[in-house]
């Protein structure tokens, strides 16, 4: 019974802290008494949506989490798969609400947070990817969010020496007041040295490493991450957190050196809910108790209350479990890296989290009640009678000149060149990057050479298309998985595992619940088809603004393997005289397509069906073609359809091309069926031999020329394609 139990904040305070009355009652029941201030603060965060997955945990059970290449799965800080004798750890996480409030710091600390999840496994982060969603850049606020979020991602990733090798950006009015900033980190570790987060060994010390603890983001997890953003965002602003990549760089190097020196029992990052979440997760996983003395925590501001210290979200901190005999060695390495390192507690057999201020016991909670006993809610899904999303403003005519339509699509913010964004990211530090952004459809990272001297590689990609998920949550989510896998196939990689971030609106609303359940089922189908596990991910709910929910946006990140880094492809046509082939069951429609949106159509209708078997056969054919060298360039047909894909192959390459298609109509030129079709090029006899490949033309000349069987023809100069594509986003990021 904690001494300060005399101060009982009570039920009203609990409700202010975003707990429900019923939740408060079950806390009282579990505790056998009313929680004091410290305890209530801890419950309010660990029982928040962000930490407890109250509305998503049951849904997530649908996801396959087993695979023979899986080394570490859901439940750890990040998942990991085995590649060429190494553990490749990866996870995507969202920082949406903080980024909507302060995009630079919100995005920067988002990158810092996912980096620490990977570091916590003892992996060296080797790549970052980012997935961004904003309102149309015609809006000044969206331009500001884009500009600052990108700068923040670059600031953190560049400064810490982790290359940002890929990502995606999509603009839609539904994100106007609720942008999405998802960041994915990939790390490499020695499989025998993978760290777990389970605290074990009664008597072992609890060591806090890294930055000073201040009043950063107090209430952040419950206030910022689990409630809709309203008019009063301003009040939430004091909780803005500042990222310090320099501090994190020292955390990174020190942690990896500590693990190499075999000095740690367990390691955990401090993320949402700070010390409370990390300490209780470690205790829960290890089925032990922890005693923590907040008086020992080094503070940035004097006079912080125990509850503030327990929930502070100050960045760049890690928590380690260390055998008493090794504490001095740990301190020595932290000193070398000019890193604070403080012994703040001990592992106990009580299975309680006991919080002390010096001698005084200020909080005493059974660990399981914090971590496992939060009520999980069933969703009440209901398929909405009609479409939920308003038609976007039209800026293209329903009947347009084909060449003009093509150029307009290429110049559109959703399709235009991302150079102005990814040029702000260091994509090459660590000297692994074999394919940089725009070189190929997925980033390729070389791994150390094996005995025979060849260097294997991993390929990474991140994808999502909320518009298609809005039209059909199940099919759209499946498409996201297929498109991500298609990107890997383009560089010759075989998918090994998937991570995802589920960005949705308020799950207590029946239609959002329906979107969530259907989308997760679609993701699961995709994983089952590819035979890969979900290794981890993140859920971001309540993404709504005054003007309604965001498009349902599951973002999929994938890691694949390649036997030889030096045998891969480019997206662009590399040289004259190559045969161009279409591979895959590509039967497009305009439903929820980019052209449909530009013509002012709401994201509604029936998506083209997916013939999984032939889709996977096409992926295999492209992958094998790249690996055998038959395919020199490969690009999957996604937004903007066949014509845009061809234009990109020309714009990114060094030559034009001439192809013939059955029909020169909008559907065959601009219709979409993501993840199903590929444009490949290579020498004719080799390309003709690719299973399912249909040769449609040749590379060469200064133009992109498309003709149909009855001689109709559209031709655009490569220079004009490049100009349209290059200027589309640049004009918003001068």
């Amino acid at each position: 019974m904690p001494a300060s139990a005399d101060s009982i904040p009570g039920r009203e305070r609990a409700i202010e802290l975003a707990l429900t009355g019923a939740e408060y009652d079950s806390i009282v029941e579990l505790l056998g008494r009313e929680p004091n201030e410290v305890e209530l603060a801890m419950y309010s965060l660990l029982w928040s949506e962000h930490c407890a997955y109250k509305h998503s945990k049951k849904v997530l059970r649908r996801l396959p989490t087993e695979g023979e290449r899986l080394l570490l799965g859901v439940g750890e800080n990040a998942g990991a798969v085995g590649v060429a004798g190494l553990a490749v750890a990866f996870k995507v996480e969202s920082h949406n609400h903080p980024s909507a409030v302060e995009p630079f710091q919100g995005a920067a600390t988002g990158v810092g947070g996912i980096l620490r999840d990977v570091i916590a496994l003892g992996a060296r982060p080797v790549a970052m990817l980012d997935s961004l969603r904003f309102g149309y850049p015609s809006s000044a606020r969206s331009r500001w969010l884009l500009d600052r979020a990108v700068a923040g991602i670059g600031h953190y990733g560049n400064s810490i020496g982790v290359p940002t090798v890929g990502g995606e950006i999509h603009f839609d009015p539904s994100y106007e007041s609720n942008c999405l900033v998802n960041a994915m980190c990939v790390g490499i570790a020695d499989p025998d040295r993978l760290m777990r987060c389970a605290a074990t060994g009664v008597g072992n010390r609890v060591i806090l490493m890294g930055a000073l603890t201040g009043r950063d983001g107090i209430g952040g997890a419950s206030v910022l991450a689990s409630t809709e953003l309203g008019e009063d965002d301003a009040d939430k602003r004091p909780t803005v957190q500042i990222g310090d990549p320099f501090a994190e760089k020292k955390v990174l190097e020190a942690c990896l050196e500590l693990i190499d020196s075999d000095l740690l029992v367990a390691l955990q990052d401090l993320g949402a809910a700070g010390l409370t979440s990390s300490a209780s997760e470690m205790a829960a996983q290890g089925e032990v108790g922890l005693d923590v003395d907040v008086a020992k925590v080094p503070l940035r501001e004097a006079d912080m209350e125990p509850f503030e210290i327990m929930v502070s979200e100050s960045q760049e901190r890690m928590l380690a479990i260390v055998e008493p005999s090794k504490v001095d060695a740990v301190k020595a390495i932290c000193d070398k890296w000019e890193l604070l390192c403080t012994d703040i507690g001990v592992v106990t057999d009580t299975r309680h989290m006991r919080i002390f201020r010096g001698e005084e016991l200020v909080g005493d909670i059974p660990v399981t009640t914090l971590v496992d006993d939060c009520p999980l809610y069933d969703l009440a899904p209901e398929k909405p009678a009609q479409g939920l999303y308003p038609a976007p403003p039209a800026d293209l005519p329903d009947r347009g000149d084909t060449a003009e339509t093509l150029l307009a699509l290429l110049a559109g913010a959703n399709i235009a060149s991302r150079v102005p964004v990814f040029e702000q990211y260091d994509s090459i530090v660590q000297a692994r990057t074999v394919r940089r952004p725009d070189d190929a459809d997925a980033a390729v990272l070389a791994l150390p050479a094996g005995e025979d001297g060849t260097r294997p590689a991993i390929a990474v990609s991140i994808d999502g298309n909320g518009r298609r998920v809005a039209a059909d949550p199940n099919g759209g989510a499946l498409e996201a998985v297929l498109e991500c896998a298609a990107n890997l196939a383009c560089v010759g990689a075989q998918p090994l595992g998937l991570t995802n971030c589920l960005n949705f609106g308020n799950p207590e609303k029946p239609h959002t619940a329906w979107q969530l359940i259907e989308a997760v089922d679609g993701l699961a189908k995709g994983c089952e088809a590819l035979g890969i596990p979900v290794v981890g991910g993140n859920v971001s709910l309540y993404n709504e603004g005054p003007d309604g929910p965001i498009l349902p946006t599951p973002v999929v990140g994938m890691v694949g393997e390649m036997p030889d880094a030096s045998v891969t492809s480019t997206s662009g046509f590399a040289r004259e005289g190559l045969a161009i082939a279409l591979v895959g069951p590509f039967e497009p429609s305009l439903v929820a397509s980019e052209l449909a949106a530009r013509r002012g159509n709401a994201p509604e209708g029936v998506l083209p069906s997916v013939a999984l078997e032939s889709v996977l056969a096409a992926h295999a054919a492209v992958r094998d073609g790249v690996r055998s060298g038959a395919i020199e360039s490969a690009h999957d047909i996604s937004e903007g359809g066949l014509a845009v894909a061809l234009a990109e192959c020309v714009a990114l390459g060094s030559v034009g091309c001439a192809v013939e298609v059955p029909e020169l109509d909008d559907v065959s030129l601009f219709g979409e069926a993501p993840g199903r079709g590929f444009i490949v090029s290579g020498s004719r006899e080799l390309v003709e031999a690719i299973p399912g490949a249909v040769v449609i033309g040749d590379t060469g000349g200064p133009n992109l020329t498309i003709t149909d069987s009855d001689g109709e023809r559209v031709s655009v100069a490569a220079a004009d394609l490049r100009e349209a594509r290059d200027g589309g986003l640049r004009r918003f990021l001068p």
Partner: protein
Amino acid sequence: MKARVLIRPKQGILDPQGQTVERALPALGFTGISNVSVGRLVELEVADASQLESLCEQLLANTLIEDFEIQLDGD
């Protein structure tokens, strides 16, 4: 008239630059220096000083994380 705007990190908000500089000082042989904070200095000519307040709020300072102080020539 000439105006000067002093922009500093808000109290209680992390100031990595100030912290890092302060930690480095002893090694450089400077002692007895504390509470280092690093901010920004904006100087400009303004015809109508009454605009400055909102200029700072809208453009010069990020009021989420920074405080600003306006000094008019003669202060």
